[in-house]
């Protein structure tokens, strides 16, 4: 964890020195707001990956949940119906993923990749190229508003972080997730109900994607079928940059928050410095590799020193 913070600190330092607009309270809150959306979509996914699974459907699930939430709010006028529709969609998709992985024994990559395409298909059919837009400002505030000068999505990130921290550190269930991720067979032999735990994790990932979908809807004030497509890779990248291993058994939500902040800082910095659009993908790649390199070098150094 602490090594990852070195990467963040270096990026922050570099940006602070090169742009006057960077190290202002309003810009730092702006970065946190943007990072919290990536964090929300990646939070459930983090736990799935800790359990040695994978959920490639988070972006598509987020998109479909946002569209259903939008349609529900338009149909009923009640914001609660939007939350209900978005969360229900997310949870059902997550549950189906969990069942495919455990009961049908499909590899997580394939099960959730198949789900991704099915969700795109449902969404394309449902939306027919339309956009649903125009929501009340009380709803939009969830994505773009502030409470006591702090962006509302940031509260959600903090709540998610605390709840996740308690779950992974202080509950038996949380410990079981790490045990399953480290060695599923050993976990099963020691009496952990692996299948039901995995189903729970995938459902949680789906639920968080659904919630993130509703928050994205509030932020964008509109839903279209393609809304979640560009969000999958950043979510996975945030988890992995945050130090959660794709092989399972290690990592956690704090790391994912760091990963989300790193990804957000890169774009924020490039925009503030006015980096030419053509160079932005290259710069993004270099900085991500740089952050990962600092992490691995400092960690190896610390391990050797210890």
């Amino acid at each position, binding site marked *: 964890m602490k090594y990852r913070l070195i990467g963040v600190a270096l990026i922050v330092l570099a940006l602070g020195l090169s742009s006057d*607009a960077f190290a202002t309270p309003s*810009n730092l809150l702006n970065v946190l707001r943007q990072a919290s959306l990536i964090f929300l979509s990646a939070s459930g996914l983090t736990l799935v990956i800790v359990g040695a699974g994978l959920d490639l459907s988070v972006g598509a699930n987020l998109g479909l949940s946002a569209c259903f939430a939008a349609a529900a709010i*338009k149909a009923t006028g009640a914001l609660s119906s939007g939350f209900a529709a978005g969360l229900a969609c997310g949870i059902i998709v997550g549950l189906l993923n969990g069942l495919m992985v455990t009961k049908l024994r499909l590899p997580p990559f394939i099960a959730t990749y198949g789900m991704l395409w099915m969700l795109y298909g449902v969404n394309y059919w449902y*939306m027919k190229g*339309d956009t649903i*837009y125009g929501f009340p400002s009380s709803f939009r505030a969830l994505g773009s508003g502030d409470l006591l000068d702090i962006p509302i999505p940031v509260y959600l990130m903090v709540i998610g972080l605390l709840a996740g921290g308690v779950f992974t550190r202080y509950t038996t269930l949380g410990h079981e997730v790490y045990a399953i991720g480290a060695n599923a067979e050993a976990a099963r032999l020691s009496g952990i109900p692996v299948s039901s735990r995995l189903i729970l994790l995938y459902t949680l990932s789906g639920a968080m994607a659904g919630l993130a979908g509703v928050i994205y809807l509030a932020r*964008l004030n509109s839903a279209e079928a393609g809304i979640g497509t560009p969000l999958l890779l950043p979510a996975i990248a945030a988890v992995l940059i945050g130090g959660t291993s794709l092989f399972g058994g290690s990592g956690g939500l704090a790391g994912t928050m760091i990963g989300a902040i790193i990804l957000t800082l890169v774009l924020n910095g490039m*925009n*503030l410095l006015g980096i030419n*659009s053509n160079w932005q993908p290259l710069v993004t790649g270099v900085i991500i590799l740089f952050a990962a390199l600092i992490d691995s070098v400092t960690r190896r150094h610390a391990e050797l020193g210890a």
Partner: protein
Amino acid sequence: MTFGERLKFPFKGLVLLTAGVVLAACGETKNRETIALFTKNQTNPYFQTVRVAAQAAAKESNVDIINYIPTSNDSIPEQMNQIEDAITKRPSAVVFIPVDSKAMIPGVEKFNAAGIPVVNLIDRADGGQFVSFVGCDDYAVAMNTARYLFEKMNGKGNVIIIEGQGGSSNNQKRMAGFRKALEDFPNVKVLASQTGNFQRAMALQVTENLLQAHSQIDGILAANDAMALGVIQALDAANRKALVIGLNGTKEAIDAVKAGKLLATGDCDGFLQGCMGTMAAVRHLRNLPVPPEVVFPITVFDSTNYQGADAPYEQRMCPKWESIVKD
């Protein structure tokens, strides 16, 4: 469209599917002419408008439309595969919107080699042989809309540009149009030009960042409407004001013009293009004259002229060919 209405569709679809199977089984389907319509993606409402218009035109002319739409937005390899699929099914004619004006040239050449007539719609391909090009000029649309903005700014002030997907020929033409307009307004200063990848969410995020860096922004040029609407969300949330323009004339953008949030959106009518592209293909099949180019006038929709453009496109009718194309 309500929640319920949206859900009713699969049943209709099932009925149609069953009917189709029964008809096909009886071998009673007539040998109708088919037109393969290639659009760029499932998600941009603009292409949905084109598809609805093409369907309307096809119905009037008694031909069938087969839609080819990449499942990944604007995917070059996928459109290439779909071209090969279409050739094996031998449609009577093709109405083709290339996902990329250079990369799809070999695809057009495959149609040419197979002897299937192709009408090039909306985005001009840089090569291959076509019966006709039906569309308008992205460069000119961008230029006119930018000029409109600069005039509203009294020819001076600070602007930012939200670019589309780097490397896409669409984006290059639109940026060239913006740049050309800037040449005529030396007192308009570009503070930043950053990419939003044609995506609403990214445009929103990039605008939030740029608002942090620049305290005085008078105008914002977005390379499509979805991004312009993302820009507006960022301005609203930050309680900032700027004149915003978008391109495409989508219904959502027109509604934003109506609400006074968006200054203008530049467009040549997607519905009209869908109609005329299909009609050009039909006319070619029936040996009626089709000019090599049908280029539409550009409209910059603002608060004075949006009326009519905000009507649901399902209710619109295709115009007569002769009312648009005059010899």
